[in-house]
Every structure is written in C-alpha cells, then in structure tokens.
C-alpha cells in the first residue's frame, strides 16, 4: 500500500484555497475580538435583544397571510422513484403534483448572504441528487426570527450534545452556517450546537409554513402502505407470491417511528405499487430493519433484516452462498482438505490454512451482491476472522451443475 500512501502524500490543500481559508479565519478572529471589545465596553453580558423585532414580525406575518400563496400543486399522497424526465433536471416532482407554478421558488444555487431553506432531496422525489434551495423574500422577518433563536443558543452549555439523530431533511442556511431541523422540534448546527424546540418555535414555524407552501413531499407513513400489489427492489429482486406481498405489507404498515435516528447506510430502494394506483418508494438498509422516507425513519423489526429480505426472490440463493462460505471457511481453518473438497470447483486451488486454526474466531460473513457486475456476475464472499489481527478469507463463487461452489479463495491480511 506504499504506492497508495505516496499518492495521498502528494494530495495537499491547494495554495489558493489555504490562503482563502486563512483570510476567512483571520476575518472571523477580528470580528470576534471586536465583538468582545464592544461587549466589554457597554457591559451588556446578556444576548442582544431587539424588543421591536417581535412587533415587526407580527406585522410582517399579518401582511404575508394576506398575500397570494405560491403553491406547487396538490399535496402528494405518496412518492415516486425518479423517472427519466425527472432526472433531466427541474424542481422536485411527485406522482400527484404538477410542475411548480413559479419554478424560481426553488433553485439549485443559493445566495450565501441571505437566509434560505435547503431541502434534502432523496431519490424518491427529486430530480437528480442535488439540494434545492428556497430563499424567502421577506428576509428581515426571517432574520429577526433567526437572531431570536441564535440568541437562545448562547444560553446553552458549551456543548449541547445531540445524542440522537433524527433529521427532517430540511436545513436552514445562512452564510456558512447550517442548521438542521430535527423531528423533535429542535435545530442542530452539525457541530454539537443544538437549540431546543421551545427556543426556536417561531423560526421553525416559519420554516414549516414555507415547506408546506412549497409542497415539499411528506414522508410516506406506515398507515399509507395498504393493498400492496407489487414490490420491487432496485436490484431487480421482486416479491411476486401473494402471501409474501401480504407479509411485506404487514411488516411495513406496522412499522414504528425511529426518533433516535438510524445511523446506517441505505443501499436499496423499494418501490411499492398500491391498489389505489399510487406508487411509493422507500429506502432500505441491509444493516438494520429500518426504512427511510423523506428524512423520516421507521423500524419494521428489532433484530435483523432477514424477515423482510427473505420475502424477495433470490434471497434463498444468498443464504445458500453464505452457508457454503461459512462451512468452507471452518473446514479451511481446521486444515481439513477432505471437508473442503465438496465446496470447490475442479479448477479451484487446494490449500489449507497454515496457522493455528484453533485460535481463529469467525467475525463476519459478508456477501457482496451489489458488486455482481464488477465481478462478472459471480458473488464474492468475504469471511472476516480474528487471530491476532483481522484477516480476511475471500471466496469467489461459481455455479456448477446448479450448485454454488468456490472457484477461487485466498487470504488477505
């Protein structure tokens, strides 16, 4: 790996970038020093308050309620996977909505000097994978609410740690600051500053009102998953047996919200066609029994994902491959060539483990189904085991007379 580390040694921050950041840091330091001097001079330790802000906000709110509301179509009942038309670009669309009446309401660029809302797109509704921004015209009203919330931030301890993670998928951006709206009502700035719900109520209300007017899609809720007619994963696997469709519907419709967030990778998406003609798409993870829709997490099980994934055709082959891999690995580490033989193709090597197999602890059996393309369609399984350090036994599988066998294997340390 020395070639690799040497390559990374050559990757350094460009000089112009370093100079730019250094200038920004020095500017920030001067601002902080100036602020400290002002606070000392006027002896005003409490956060700056602007009593007129609430009155101004009330007036602005009253005026804005009387103006025309910009709508982007009807509220969707579900979400769809992106179509070819969507991926060519344009504002987010859902199955039941038309194009926005004023496309400029949502943009793909933001003005750093203005408060804006950033909507986390998902593959479920957005065109492509980009963020979308909404810049309210009434910046003064938004800034008032923003500063009121920020003033509260300084009343918290130095690190108001966010123990859980449950994002709404909506961010408030201003200059270089990110504030993420959490499902518990708080806002979080991604570096351990959190403002509790009761202290950012006005700001949050304005954000949700804007999101509502923009027609940002709501998450799919478990109770909406009724009458599943078909289910397909993005990797082509499907549920076709009626009993299995019923089981899938039961699992998903009985899901419960996950308020602590789900720190897993979502690698699959599941498209469900419902009896009312609508289509919903959920993100699934192989790592945990959770699904995701528009930044909201739901749990369908408590231990593993097998109960759901086993409903899809093709699951049984994966289980077979894992079983063969584990049985072969045990025989390999035991140095038992006779036990290994049934699992090997004719061309496979015949080598046994040279170390002390009794000290080996099998840690993980992982089948790399997502890489079928890069491995010419042949599954590759890695078994992780621990001796004094992690070592990996990798096996390449091939089908021989309808049985999965190992065509090649090797240790990687």
């Amino acid at each position: 790996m020395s070639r690799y580390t040497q390559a990374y040694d050559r990757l350094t921050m460009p000089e112009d970038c370093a100079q730019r950041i250094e200038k920004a840091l020095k500017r920030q330091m001067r601002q902080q020093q100036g602020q400290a001097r002002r606070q000392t001079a006027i002896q005003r330790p409490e956060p700056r308050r602007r009593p007129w802000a609430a009155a101004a906000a009330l007036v602005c709110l009253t005026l804005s309620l009387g103006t025309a509301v910009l709508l982007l179509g009807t509220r969707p009942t579900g979400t769809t996977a992106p179509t070819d038309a969507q991926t060519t670009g344009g504002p987010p669309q859902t199955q039941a909505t038309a194009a926005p009446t004023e496309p400029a309401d949502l943009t793909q660029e933001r003005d750093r000097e203005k408060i804006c809302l950033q909507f986390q797109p998902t593959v479920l509704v957005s065109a492509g994978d980009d963020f979308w921004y909404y810049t309210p015209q009434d910046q003064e009203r938004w800034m008032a609410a923003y500063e009121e919330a920020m003033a509260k931030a300084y009343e918290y301890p130095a690190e108001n740690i966010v123990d859980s993670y449950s994002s709404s998928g909506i961010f408030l951006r201003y200059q270089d600051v990110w504030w993420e709206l959490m499902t518990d009502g708080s806002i979080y700035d991604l570096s351990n500053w959190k403002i509790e719900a009761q202290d950012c109520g006005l700001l949050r209300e304005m954000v949700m009102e804007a999101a509502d007017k923009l027609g940002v899609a709501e998450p799919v809720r478990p109770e909406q998953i009724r009458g599943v007619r078909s289910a397909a994963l993005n990797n082509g696997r499907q549920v076709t047996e009626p009993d299995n469709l019923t089981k899938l519907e039961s699992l998903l419709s009985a899901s419960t919200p996950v308020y602590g967030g789900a720190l897993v990778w979502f690698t699959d998406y599941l498209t469900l066609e419902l009896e009312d003609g609508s289509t919903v798409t959920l993100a699934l993870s192989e790592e945990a029994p959770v699904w995701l829709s528009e930044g909201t997490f739901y749990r369908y099980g408590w231990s593993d994902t097998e109960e759901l994934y086993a409903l899809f055709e093709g699951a049984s082959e994966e289980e077979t491959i894992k079983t063969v891999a584990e049985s072969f690995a045990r025989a390999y580490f035991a140095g038992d060539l006779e036990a290994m033989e049934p699992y090997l193709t004719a061309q496979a090597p015949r080598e046994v483990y040279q170390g002390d197999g009794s000290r080996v602890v099998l840690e993980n059996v992982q089948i790399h189904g997502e890489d079928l393309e890069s491995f010419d369609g042949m599954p590759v399984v890695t078994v992780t085991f621990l001796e004094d350090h992690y070592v990996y036994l990798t096996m390449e599988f091939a089908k021989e007379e309808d049985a999965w066998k190992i065509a090649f294997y090797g240790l990687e340390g």
Partner: protein
Amino acid sequence: MDVLYLFHRYKDDVYRLAVSYIHNVQEAEDVCQTVFLKLMEQKHIQPGKEKAWLMQATVNQCRSLLRSSWWKRTVALEESAGIPQTPEDETLQVVMALPAKYRVVIYLHYYERYTAAEIGKLLKIPVSTVTTRLSRGRRLLRAELKEV
C-alpha cells in the same frame, strides 16, 4: 486554542479526508473552510484531541453534503473537477475512482492509521462493515493498480 496553528498543521489532513469522502475538489475546499470556521466557534477542545475533532467534523460535514448522493454512481474522473491528471498521479486517479464507501475507509485505515474500531466510531458504522469495506476496497484497488 490557536486556530491558525491548527489550520496550518491539519489543513492537508482535513482536505484529504474531504476529497476522499466527496470526490469533488471544489466542495472539499468548502468543507475545509466550514470545518475550520466551526473550530473557531469551539470554546474548548481537549489538548491533543484537536485532530480527532477536526476529522469528526469533516466527516459530519461531508455526510451532510452526501446525504443526497447515496445512490449516486461514481463520478467519472473527468467530472471530478480538479483531481490532477498528471501521469504521476495515476495511482491517485485509481484510488479516487473507488466508490466513496471504500476509499474513505481505506484512506482512514492506511493513511491516517485508524483502527477498524476507530473508523467505525468516526463514521458511525459497525466494525464489521468497516472490515468488509476494507477488504473489498483493497481487492478493487489491487486489481486496478495492477493495470496502472
């Protein structure tokens, strides 16, 4: 806490991690600026833990950018603007062509010398996932580098 000192000391580490993660030089530069500005807002970081804080903040910042990109396929090298195209950097080009989930753990393990457990904690993924990605990433890298 001398932020400028920490900047000059760790800017390359933060930059490399950001580039490894999001595979885009312009966005990586923005991430670096945001991370060091956030460092300025920290009242106190335990001495000796500054680098760990910076790495975690970089990961957090990159993840927030990438949350919409979980299904994004690997960007073609010519689109990942700014990665040097000189012959001396062919290895880097191969590395950057790996999917993000592999190149990040490979970078953290082999370059930054994090253990699998530390990487799991940093990226908030199970250790078994880390080891799996290390294994797969090495395999892909080895296969690709043979041809370079």
